[in-house]
């Protein structure tokens, strides 16, 4: 085994692992508990940078007995995961200070990101399972972080139980696959299945069962309907930074696994209809309940949770077509989605820091308090809706739907039409929220905030120990990236995401 190669390819992961240990030690030494978040942010940013500039991924390399594969797809996804995680860690830095023992948040956060990073280059069912567990168990800890709040505990236990069932389902699929192929390695499993199929030795019920179990287990991670029931409660109850992590990093990792497993390892004629059904259900359920949420003036976090179910649906449409072009545009869309969602949630985090509330009603008239952030939040919402105001979201959605439409799958046009109808419905609740913030009079919570601020100023105390609020900085950074990408880099990004899928290795 070539350890030089291993350390070269896994350097970003080693950086994060080092940061896990450093943050654990730092939480003992650092009394102000302020620097662990910054260390985590820096380490994740460094990892993304190292993964981006290294030459690995230009050819397919398997390391550690083919447990991990380094190809263009794993490189692209790792850069994306670590980069977005750096932004999320930055947004969480101040937000989690209100919980007791805030410093331990970041070791857990970094481990969850590490699990997601390994899933990007997974090439063995055992690595897949352990990676999913690393991501899942750490995510449960992140969800239950504000343990004084009952809703956080409730959501953590709900997530734990549903995640355990999903893990069981995945393990059953893996054990059946092992039973027919006598291997856990992706390449061997794939070639063995092709061999068995060629002499038609696999029974139809077995193929259906394995596909169903795999799709179910992965759809749970993607929060796609009908495996979405945990999503609203968990997203609502968790600390907002953890919600952001679940809705972005978990989802990217889920799609990384889905692309690899369904694209290269396990593929049959029953898989695509299943994925299509899940895509359609996600679009319908996510948008329908999102509308109800905004009409009943519920929570913004729940609204974004339902919208993320619908977004999973759009992405699954491209996955269900399973052509190189459509999966390439899936990668492009998930990149833009991750940036937009980070931006939107960073604004929610900032709002929550200020007012302690996340209900839709309290957002009314925010523009009169924070015009800059309201505009940023609105841009993120417009992009999630697919409006060409800062064209990135529109272009990504356009590519997603057009490549799916022309993919050659018989029912692809119908899927795209449903997705289009869904995004028109989604326009309503995104724009309603934007209208509420920009046009309406300030809410009671915001008016109250004013008096609190006046008192704070007169007493001469500074509420915030940072020179600039981290959540606000995250929102500005991510919207900056979005604007720069949509003006200069859309062609480049599209090229990169297409190249990432063309050089995928088995």
């Amino acid at each position, binding site marked *: 085994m070539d350890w030089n190669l291993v350390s070269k390819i896994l350097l970003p992961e080693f950086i994060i692992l080092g940061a896990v240990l450093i943050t654990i030690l730092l939480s003992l030494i650092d009394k102000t508990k302020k620097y662990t978040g910054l260390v985590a942010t820096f380490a994740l940013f460094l990892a993304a940078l190292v993964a981006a500039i290294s030459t690995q991924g230009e050819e397919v390399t398997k390391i550690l*007995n083919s447990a991990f594969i380094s190809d263009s797809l794993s490189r692209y996804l790792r850069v994306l995961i670590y980069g977005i995680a750096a932004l999320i860690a930055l947004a969480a830095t101040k937000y989690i200070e209100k919980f007791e023992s805030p410093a331990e948040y970041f*070791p857990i956060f970094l*481990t969850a990101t590490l699990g997601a990073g390994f899933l990007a280059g997974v090439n063995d069912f055992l690595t897949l399972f*352990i990676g999913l567990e690393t991501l899942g168990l750490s995510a449960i800890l992140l969800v239950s972080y504000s343990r004084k709040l009952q809703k956080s505990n409730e959501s953590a236990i709900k997530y734990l139980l549903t995640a355990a069932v999903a893990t069981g389902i995945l393990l059953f699929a893996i054990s059946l696959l092992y*039973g027919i*192929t006598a291997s856990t390695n992706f390449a061997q499993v794939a070639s063995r299945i092709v061999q068995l199929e060629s002499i038609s030795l696999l029974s*139809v019920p*077995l193929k259906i069962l394995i596909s169903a179990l795999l799709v179910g287990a992965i759809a749970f991670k993607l929060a796609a309907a009908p495996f979405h029931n945990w999503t609203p409660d968990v997203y609502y109850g968790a600390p907002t930074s953890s919600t952001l992590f679940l809705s972005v990093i978990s989802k990217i990792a889920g799609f990384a696994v889905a692309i690899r497993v369904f694209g290269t390892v396990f593929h049959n004629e029953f898989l695509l209809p299943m994925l299509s059904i899940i895509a359609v259900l996600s679009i319908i359920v996510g948008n329908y309940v999102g509308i109800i949420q905004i009409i009943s003036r519920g929570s913004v976090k729940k609204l974004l949770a339902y919208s993320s179910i619908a977004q999973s649906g759009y992405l699954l449409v491209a996955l269900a077509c399973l052509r190189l072009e459509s999966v390439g545009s899936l990668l492009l869309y998930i990149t833009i989605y991750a940036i937009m969602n980070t931006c939107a949630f960073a604004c929610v985090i900032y709002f929550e820091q200020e007012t302690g509330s996340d209900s839709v009603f309290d957002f009314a008239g925010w523009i009169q308090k924070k015009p800059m952030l309201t505009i940023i939040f609105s841009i993120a919402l417009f992009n999630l809706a697919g409006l060409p105001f800062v064209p990135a979201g529109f272009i990504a959605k356009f590519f997603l739907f057009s490549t799916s439409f022309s993919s050659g799958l018989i029912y692809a046009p119908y899927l795209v039409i449903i997705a289009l109808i869904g995004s028109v419905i989604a326009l309503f609740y995104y724009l309603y929220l934007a209208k509420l913030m920009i046009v309406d009079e300030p809410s009671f919570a915001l008016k109250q905030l004013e008096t609190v601020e006046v008192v704070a100023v007169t007493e001469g105390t500074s509420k915030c120990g940072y020179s600039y609020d981290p959540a606000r900085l995250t929102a500005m950074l991510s919207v900056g990236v979005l604007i720069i990408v949509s003006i200069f880099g859309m062609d480049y990004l599209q090229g990169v995401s297409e190249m990432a899928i063309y050089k995928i290795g088995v």
Partner: protein
Amino acid sequence: MQFLATISSLPFYILATISIICALGMILNPNLVRAGFTLIGSFIGIAGLYFLLNANFVAVSQVLIYAVGIVLVIVFAVMLCSLKEEAHNIKESVFSSKARVTFAVLISSLVFAVLSFVIRSQDWQAIAKLTGAERQSSLVQLVDDKYLSQIGFLMLNKYILPFELVSVLLLIVLVGTILLSKKDIK
């Protein structure tokens, strides 16, 4: 086939019956401590099945980790928790207990039916013939003296990445557990 011969023998049925009866006893027993101890019986029955299938290491791990370790932890946790105060806060489900039991029986028998149908539909012996050579080479020899050392070798060689990832996972789960269970400092 050796496997099929094993699972249709009398010891298999005895052990399977023991573990099923104990599992049922665990679910139906209202006393949590007794239910926890019944669980040991179920785990030991399953460990016996592993012995029957020549998976000695798995069987010993099953006894050591599940039957002894985990059950003890569960029983201690039950005894240390004061459930009486909390029990009043638990909301009644919208369904009646009869409906819940019916639903549970329906779901589990459906799962059992589907799984047994699917597994019976596949011709496993043909696959075993095809992959037999690989199974011999890739898996540990069951009656070999070096059985344990082979497992250790595989863990630290072929499966080094998952193995190391598990150690990171355990570290962070330890941190998280302490965090969740520690008393508030005031």
